[in-house]
């Protein structure tokens, strides 16, 4: 109720855009002159019609009615009590002058006419006032409707915002459009950094005074600037964007012209600010929720990782311990040949552990976000060669080839990490395919993609498993024998590395059997 009353009271200043900017003197004089000419025109018309009626000896009261009609129509056009008063007086005088005896004179013979004049004046004046009131009320209703619908439109637009930039841009544009003013909105985060900013009309906010006013609003949480006690000389008026937890931002508005901001305009801005606050709080809530979810996800991954690492470590460790203790306890009973085999197996297991540790180290670095890509312009073929040389030491009876194009392809990558990817893929291929298998690494360009491909002719991966191989701690279950060589960590690390380079990695089956892992990286 209260609010509605406030709007009604201040209606003239807020509902219509043109009325928010005060009219200047020239315009006022123009209006008066225009109205006086209209008044003269209407009165002339009324007199002319009355003359006609008079000559055909029509009923005299009709003439009074014609004048009343004149007063009414003029009041409707002029919208002002002074104007309707003037029209009433004019009409009475004209009626007196032309149509009462003695004619063409303001004297009155019959005293009854005094009553007629008086009633005519009163009726004219009151009906015209009522007309004006009705018209104004209708205008009010229309304006309020427009006001509500514009709030609704802004609210709807703000519902769709995705980020702080959108939020400030849309609100500022709407306010600016509504008041024909320059608007600035600035949002801050908890540590006082600006997270969103939109300025329409840079000049209105760039003075030293304006900057101080803006800062003052942010620090104190109360409005100041143009038209207020504090920083009254500033070009714009500043209003804080407040939530329960404190100041979230500052809204500045500089009206065109020199007028001060009106109370109702502030009220309108406050409604919009309330919406901004709701949206910001909503976003903050969303973010917090996401953070919690991410944290939970990380926690689960960490637990999975520990489980998987323990498993992956235990198998080669069990091998090393078993072989070493057997060799030690039965040193004299076993032949040199067997001892040599034992030592070789211990070496292989240790080598495997080493590879594992490397992957774990890289993975944890990636997860903690500590890995900064050490990008450099590298020849793709050199990375392949380095990877193959690395795995060749324990490739056994697998044949590893490389197919590279004539063109020297340069890519901007972290060479050590990409080599790690290829090493992991090659190790996988070696572990999961029988001795004597062929493994081919090829390199080619497709448009702006540089494609690396590791292809083996081993048993391949079960169709159901294809989708999950990049998941952390996934183990290929093609056969029990190779189970111990779990490379879940290795493949998921490959995926992280390639994605960090903006590329993609995918696995598919080779024909007639075997696995193809492909990844690409964009050239610039």
């Amino acid at each position, binding site marked *: 109720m209260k609010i509605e009353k406030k709007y009604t009271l201040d209606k003239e200043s807020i509902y219509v855009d043109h009325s928010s900017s005060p009219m200047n003197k020239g315009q006022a004089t123009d209006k008066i002159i225009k109205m006086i000419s209209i008044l003269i025109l209407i009165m002339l018309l009324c007199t002319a019609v009355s003359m006609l009626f008079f000559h055909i000896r029509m009923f005299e009261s009709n003439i009074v009615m014609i004048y009343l009609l004149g007063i009414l129509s003029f009041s409707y056009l002029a919208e002002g009590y002074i104007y309707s008063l003037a029209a009433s007086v004019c009409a009475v005088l004209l009626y007196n002058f032309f149509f009462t005896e003695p004619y063409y004179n303001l004297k009155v013979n019959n005293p009854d006419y005094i009553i007629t004049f008086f009633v005519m004046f009163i009726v004219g004046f009151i009906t015209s006032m009522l007309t004006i009131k009705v018209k104004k009320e209708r205008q009010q209703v229309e304006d309020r409707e427009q006001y509500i619908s514009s709030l609704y439109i802004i609210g709807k637009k703000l519902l769709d915002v995705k980020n702080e930039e959108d939020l400030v841009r849309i609100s500022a544009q709407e306010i600016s459009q509504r008041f024909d003013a320059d608007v600035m909105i600035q949002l801050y985060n908890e540590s006082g950094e600006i997270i969103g900013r939109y300025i329409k009309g840079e000049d209105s906010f760039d003075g030293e005074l304006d900057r101080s006013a803006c800062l003052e609003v942010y620090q104190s949480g109360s409005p100041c600037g143009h038209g207020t006690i504090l920083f009254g000389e500033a070009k714009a008026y500043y209003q804080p964007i407040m939530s329960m937890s404190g100041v979230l931002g500052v809204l500045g508005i500089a009206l065109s012209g020199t007028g001060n901001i009106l109370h109702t305009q502030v009220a309108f801005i406050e409604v919009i600010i309330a919406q901004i606050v709701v949206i910001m709080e909503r976003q903050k809530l969303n973010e917090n929720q996401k953070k919690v979810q991410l944290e939970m996800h990380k926690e689960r991954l960490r637990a999975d990782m520990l489980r998987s690492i323990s498993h992956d470590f235990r198998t080669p460790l069990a091998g090393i311990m078993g072989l070493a203790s057997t060799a030690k306890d039965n040193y004299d009973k076993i032949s040199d040949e067997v001892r040599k085999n034992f030592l070789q197996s211990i070496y292989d297991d*240790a080598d495997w552990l*080493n590879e594992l540790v*490397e992957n774990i180290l890289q993975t944890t670095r990636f997860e903690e976000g500590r890995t900064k890509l050490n990008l*450099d312009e590298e020849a793709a073929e050199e990375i392949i*060669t380095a990877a193959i040389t690395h795995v060749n030491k324990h490739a056994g009876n697998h044949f590893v080839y490389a197919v590279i194009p004539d063109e020297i392809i340069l890519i901007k990558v972290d060479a*050590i990490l990409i080599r790690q990817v290829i090493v992991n893929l090659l190790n996988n291929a070696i572990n999961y395919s029988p001795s004597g298998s062929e493994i081919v690494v090829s390199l080619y360009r497709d448009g702006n993609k540089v494609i690396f491909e590791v292809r083996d002719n081993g048993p391949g991966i079960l169709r159901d498993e294809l989708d999950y191989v990049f998941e952390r701690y996934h183990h290929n279950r093609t056969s029990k024998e190779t189970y111990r060589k779990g490379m879940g960590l290795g493949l998921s690390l490959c995926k992280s590395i390639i994605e960090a380079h903006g590329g993609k990695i995918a696995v598919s089956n080779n024909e007639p059997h075997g696995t193809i892992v492909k990844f690409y990286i964009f050239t610039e």
Partner: protein
Amino acid sequence: MEPLILVVDDEKSIRSFLRISIEMQGYKCIDASDGSTALMLAISRNPEILILDLGLPDIDGIEVIKKLRMVSQIPIIIISARGHEREKIEALDAGADDYLTKPFSVPELLARIRVILRHKTLQDITVEQESQAFRIRDLLIDTEKHRVWLTDQEIKLTPNEYKVLVLLAKNQGKVLTHRYIAENIYGGMLSNDTQSLRVCMGNLRRKLGEDPSKPQYIITEIGVGYRLVDE
């Protein structure tokens, strides 16, 4: 007299197996577990080769190299953990001759030691006259005529490719960092132009008919530099 080799590593087990492996090859071996002892031994005993782990408890390995280089030209093989490429490059630029990544294979280390020792003897003999030709497997480089043959077939190299090849040949078996090569080929100005060096090396490899899965001549040390194969 057998060459003396100084092993510096703070890990006892590594020192012990290195000592055994080295002595089995017929060299003499002394060891140290920290940087200051290493510096002292390197100067007082004047060993033929220093094998240096970069992660030492007292002095940073790179500091050891820098200090040593002020007084001695003793060949240094560094041992560093995997993933510390910057450290490797820094050590090589500070004057180390070669590097191995932990965990390394002993045969690999012994091979590097042999390369260094052989170069040392060669240097001692031909200290006055610059070598006229290099022969590596089927590759023959004639530095006087500026011509290169591969299995008796002459191959045409651009001036830069030739310069790189000769630079690598003069330091056969030794890793040369990208920066070192670029500085020597393009001069100081363009020393960070790694792109043209990569292309130059790619072309050189193609002309030498290298198999990308088993290079015969040029070994790429990814992230560090290049080396010409030895023995």
